[in-house]
């Protein structure tokens, strides 16, 4: 009996004190810019999902692969929509908060950088009509590559 109680207490303690690297859930509003000449929302074969380019003239690109939820517009008040600037602040806060846990996880070789897909669980909110919105679970794009930059010739 004593063994069972001890095991139970150990389990409870390990669950209570175990530290997990938890992502922050964020919501970003996606709006189609009717004046944008390029596609803002399209299926991209290479990545096998739908790309959402947040803006016509600047960055912020997301990939949606899995299911989405269509909800009543009244649900909009339940979600705190963040801007890209606010997300940068949240990212810094997350890094500071999780430094100890990361050190524990990665041990001697701490710490490889987490990117936005590791730090955030991101949803796009698109209002599709007066009554409904769609919630897309998405990933930030452009984080898995090494890009080459060189000033082009002036011809």
């Amino acid at each position, binding site marked *: 009996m004593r063994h069972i109680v001890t095991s139970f207490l150990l389990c409870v303690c390990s669950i209570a004190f175990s530290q997990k690297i938890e992502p922050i859930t964020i919501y970003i509003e996606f709006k189609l810019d009717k004046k944008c000449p390029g596609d803002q929302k399209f299926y991209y074969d290479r990545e096998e999902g739908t790309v959402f380019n947040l803006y016509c003239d600047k960055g912020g690109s997301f990939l949606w692969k899995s299911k989405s939820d269509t909800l009543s517009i009244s649900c909009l008040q339940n979600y705190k929509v963040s801007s890209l600037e606010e997300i940068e602040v949240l990212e810094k806060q997350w890094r500071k908060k999780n430094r100890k846990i990361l050190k524990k996880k990665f041990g001697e070789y701490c710490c490889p950088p987490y990117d936005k897909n590791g730090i955030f669980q991101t949803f796009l909110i698109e209002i599709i009509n007066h009554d409904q919105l769609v919630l897309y679970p998405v990933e930030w*794009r452009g984080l898995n590559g090494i890009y080459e930059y060189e000033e082009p010739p002036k011809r």
Partner: protein
Amino acid sequence: MEFFNNNKTIKRTIHFDNGEAIKADPVPANSTTGKPGTTAILPDRQVEEDCDCNNSRGGFGSLLSDFFSWIGGLFSNINISSGYGDPSNTGYVLTVTPPNMGSGYNIGSGGSSSGSGSGGVVFVPSEPQAAYQRMQVVDIVRKLGNIDATAFLWMMNPDNADNVNNVYYVLNEEEEATPETLPFLRQAVITLKAGGDVDYWFRVIIDKSLREDSCLYDIYIKLGQASNIDKYLKKFDSKFSVVDLKIGVDSKYAINQKDHILSQAVTLIPANKTIEIIINNDQTLPSNIKKFPKIYSAMVFVHEIMHADINRQLAIASRDTNISPQQMSNADWNYYINNVKNDFPKIFEYYSKYILKTTAPTDFQHQYIADKYRSVIKEALKQYDGNKHNEDFYNALSWSGLKNTVAWNKLSDAERAKILETIQTIYRDEAYCN
């Protein structure tokens, strides 16, 4: 069924038992002539005694005549053609063309359209052809799995017999296809179906987008002939290679790579056991690669292949080619980082310095390339253009894409100015695609 390599020596023999393909060991070379022994076995028959053709009967030519004689007797009402373009041949021909694998000079030359089959053996009439192709497709689908209906129908199309034969050949060339072969061939089928090309020799998937861009494709082909690059591409060729390489061109880079529209190319980390290089060819962007001279495009190919090589090494160190630490468990991370440390100590040195032991991590790969791979880039470019220019020319090009590195900053002002000046001369004097 026999498969020959480019020297017309038998590489693999396959015979058939109740519709199942069974591999036989290659017949050893004749000790007196040095030529291989030959054994002709028909696709829809079990091992046949009357196909026992050996060297003493005249080798390959004799094999063909024996074969025609045999099949002529069997199908006396069918005309048999031993070539294409025969106007009397109204039936189908089965083109048994081994993939063009004999040298490093034939990037992308596998998978020709049916009929021509350069250097192949052309025989067998319609019914066995259809049956044989069906058998091949069934075997491919069984082994690869995850083949969708459209790919299945594409493979069943007689027009694609050559491509199916190539896939079948690679799938069966070893006693057991390695786990790495299967995703490569799955990707190969998808690429071929989409009109792309597959380099079976280097195991490089050449996306349709690159295959159809004659200028960039020519640059890639010419570059593949440089022994320096050949060496790196071959690392993806090994049947034990954990990842394959795919190269493509994107004409909608502005929207597809929205956050990186100023870049000329990107090398992606492994996904689905494939490392992909995407070249910016978006005419709407000033950063598109065709706004640069052709020699610069060649440099970009080499530079990206170096990134792919680093990613390949990291993939070897990882579990299941996942090199993204945030997706690893603690155990996976320890396994990965210890493997990198032990097996690739130079890479680990840079990974540690620029990522692990700093509060402001930066891209370690460009630092590594600047220090370790610039000489490779220079040599490859010299081989590419026949060493037509002086050392400064190649040196200046080799710094492209590396101007945010510690190595670049260590150069004196005068050295940097000279390199930038040489680059401007290259931009002015060298040939462009357009």
